[in-house]
């Protein structure tokens, strides 16, 4: 089989969507702080990001200094941010909010799984990959989706003492060579995908001088995804989680190292992929944001609106999109939460369009929802 064989469903346009879920409800007001808003500092006397420490974004916002690694992507217009992002669940329950958001509404199956299904039977055994111990609900219902913890999980490694990989693969190929039609094609595709996976040197130095901090597992996961993308194995969608954002208590000691992991991982990934970032989109999302006012334990409680990031894939970034109503006490919702004015579907929909979904597919991916896509690409 020739190296020009394309295992990707989207043929000549090999695009990959990487979804990062920050589990536990990340505090959008620390990640992307409205440093110029006086009310922000009144609500957060001990936890607010100070203007002089922040990485300035525009007249209103600054990134927490631990996200400084994202400054280059922002300045180069490759990173867009949405505030007040979230879903319609107002139970403030992690489980319910994640469940609804990953399903894309009160429907069965995950939104990413439905997206993949609208593309028909997959050509590649590696069309959808989650770097995680279990498959996230968002990929539920995908034609096939692999949850793996390492790229090494993909290879065909004989388990029997004395057995040699090349012997087993050769004899397997020999048996499938007598098959006909679609099964033969599927076997050929699989052997080709395996060849490309095996050609990946998992210890190779990342490209373009990118460095993934070896002590951050999240970055190591992204590093493997970058290797997979570059190997052209037909990866359409990938999912990776970064958990631990439920910061009711001494928030800063928890969230600061997490932000470092997030930013350094994303920045290294972008640098590593280089020009391939033009066809790779990274979406960062969380189930909800946190209470605007800090609590007595130097933490924040469950809120509503959070922050969402879209990086790469042709996004017109360097902007906080979808508006910002300010932190006036009278516009807060319920117990004092940032409302949701950017429904997550309105951020995901234009991304999926960029990745080949048409209007008909979007109606299947997000049923019973009147989409008002955020202008990520205009």
């Amino acid at each position: 089989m020739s190296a020009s064989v394309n295992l990707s469903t989207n043929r000549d346009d090999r695009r990959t969507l990487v979804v990062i879920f920050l589990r536990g409800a990340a505090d959008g007001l620390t990640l992307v702080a409205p440093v110029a808003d006086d009310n922000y500092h009144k609500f957060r006397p001990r936890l607010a990001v100070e203007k002089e420490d922040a990485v300035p974004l525009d007249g209103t916002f600054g990134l927490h200094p631990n996200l400084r690694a994202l400054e280059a992507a922002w300045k180069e217009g490759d990173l867009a941010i949405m505030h007040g992002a979230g879903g319609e669940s107002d139970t403030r329950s992690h489980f319910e909010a994640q469940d609804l958001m990953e399903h894309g509404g009160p429907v069965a199956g995950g939104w990413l799984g439905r997206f993949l299904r609208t593309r028909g039977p997959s050509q590649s055994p590696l069309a959808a990959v989650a770097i995680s111990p279990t498959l996230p609900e968002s990929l539920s219902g995908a034609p096939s989706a692999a949850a793996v913890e390492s790229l090494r999980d993909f290879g065909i490694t004989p388990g029997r003492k004395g057995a040699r990989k090349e012997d087993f693969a050769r004899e397997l190929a020999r048996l499938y060579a007598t098959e006909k039609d679609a099964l033969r094609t599927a076997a050929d595709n699989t052997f080709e995908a395996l060849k490309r996976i095996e050609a990946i040197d998992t210890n190779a130095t990342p490209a373009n001088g990118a460095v993934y901090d070896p002590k951050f597992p999240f970055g190591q996961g992204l590093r493997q995804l970058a290797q997979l993308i570059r190997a052209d194995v037909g990866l359409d969608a990938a999912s990776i989680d970064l958990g631990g954002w439920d910061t009711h208590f001494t928030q800063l000691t928890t969230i600061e190292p997490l932000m470092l992991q997030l930013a350094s991982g994303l920045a290294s990934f972008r640098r590593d992929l280089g020009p391939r970032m033009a066809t790779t989109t990274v979406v960062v999302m969380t189930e909800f944001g946190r209470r605007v006012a800090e609590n007595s334990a130097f933490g924040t409680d469950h809120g509503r609106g959070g922050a969402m990031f879209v990086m790469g894939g042709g996004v017109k970034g360097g902007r906080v999109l979808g508006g910002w109503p300010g932190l006036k006490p009278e516009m807060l919702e319920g117990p004092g939460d940032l409302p949701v004015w950017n429904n997550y579907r309105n951020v995901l929909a234009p991304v999926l369009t960029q990745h080949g979904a048409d209007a008909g597919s979007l109606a299947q991916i997000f049923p019973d929802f009147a989409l008002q896509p955020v202008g990520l690409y205009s």
Partner: protein
Amino acid sequence: MKTASRREFLITGASALALSGAIFQSVQGWLGQAGQYAGVGLQRLLDGPLTPPTAAQLDPVAHALNRWTFGPGPGDYARVAALGPDAFLEEQLAPEKIDDGLCERATARFTECWSEPLGEAYEEDAEYLPPVLRRTAILRAVYSQRQLFEVMCEFWSDHFNIDPGKGDCRYTKISDDQEVIRAHALGNFRDMLRASALSPAMLWYLDGRANVKRTPGEKPNENYARELMELHTLGVHGGYTQHDVMEVARCLTGWTILAKKNDGYSGNLLSPLKDRAKVVFRKEAHDNGAKQVLGQEIAAGLGEGDLERVIEIVAAHPSTAQFIATKLCVRFIADEPPPAAVDAVTRAFTESRGDIKTTLRTLFGTPEFHASTGAKFKRPFHFVVSALRATNAQTDADRGLLSYLEKMGQVPFRYPTPDGYPARAQHWHSTLLWRWKFAIALANNHIKGTHIERKEFTAALGGDAAVAATLLNRQPSAEERDALVKSGDDLALLLASPAFQHC
């Protein structure tokens, strides 16, 4: 602890369930004595003849085992060869007479979830029940002696698919599995259809609970009405119109389930826990006018009687017989089933008024069925279960095993849309990589919670050649024999081979 042999279990029959509670507290407890138990298992194998097939091609006995079970285990071929395929079919069509002690033990730890009143399911953690449902489905498929029954349960679970991931289906799907699918899998189609229409899980999944007509201007919810005809009975080209969908929806208005929170559909019926999800008919939310469904008049004022009329009309519609017959022929004969077989099965379904056993007997008697040996590509669930059965594996059906089904895209009860997992091979071809990896992992005991006794099993069967004939259901070809030797891992190659992907 002294463990009763499997044979003793089979003899004690009725008391097996009691024993399962007393001795085998859980599958884990059982697996905790894996070595001891495995010895018992292999003794049973040594008891009976284990002679594998001697023919070079799949013979009628091998074919019967391939299609009426999730794949034969060691000794099954010899047993069915002695019995004859016809007698085996009759045995399988009377599952209630088959002792199933092994399966009962394997699923004992989950029995409570199947026997508790529906309302009590809501006391379970939201994430607890769907895995119970999935693991039990695997354990039953692997360990039950009532194989054709389990095969049909899988078939109907796809036909009346409900994903427990939607809303309260996570609490109510187990009851649906019990009261709809398993209660009628080999019974009468019309009864199953009626049970499904009144199943709390189905009322949730397809929004029947929200199908109300409380004010003159209110529009009924058509979701279930459409799927009832498109997927459960007539089929998409079965001859119904949008008007029929709307009329069926009108007929079914008012059927809902008791909820804890009044979300506008359950009315003020705030229920005590034990009545939660109980199905009720709300007269004031029912459209009691006259209707016309598929050309038949339904008089005004029938109230809840509308449902009976609808079920009768759609179940008896000629398109329904054709649609169900086609699906059965796809499952049991070929992805593109021969029209002659579909016609014969359609007639049997019609003449028996939806008797599933009669319909299956006819299907399995067609020349097209007999001619279709090895023509079906196993779906991933079938492949995995058949591999576990063929190797006499012990499994807890937990994460280690589920993760492979996940990679192949066929975790039981995890299909999101009401059409059920695809039946035809083309949807599953891209899963080969994970089948191969599963084959290697199973053969070499690299799956957490799953264990085979490779050495003992090979010795019991009488060597590598007998293992090959047992797994392939026929003698290996010269090329296969050569490949097995050269591969360095014959068991893994057998399980990964194209022959083992087919049935």
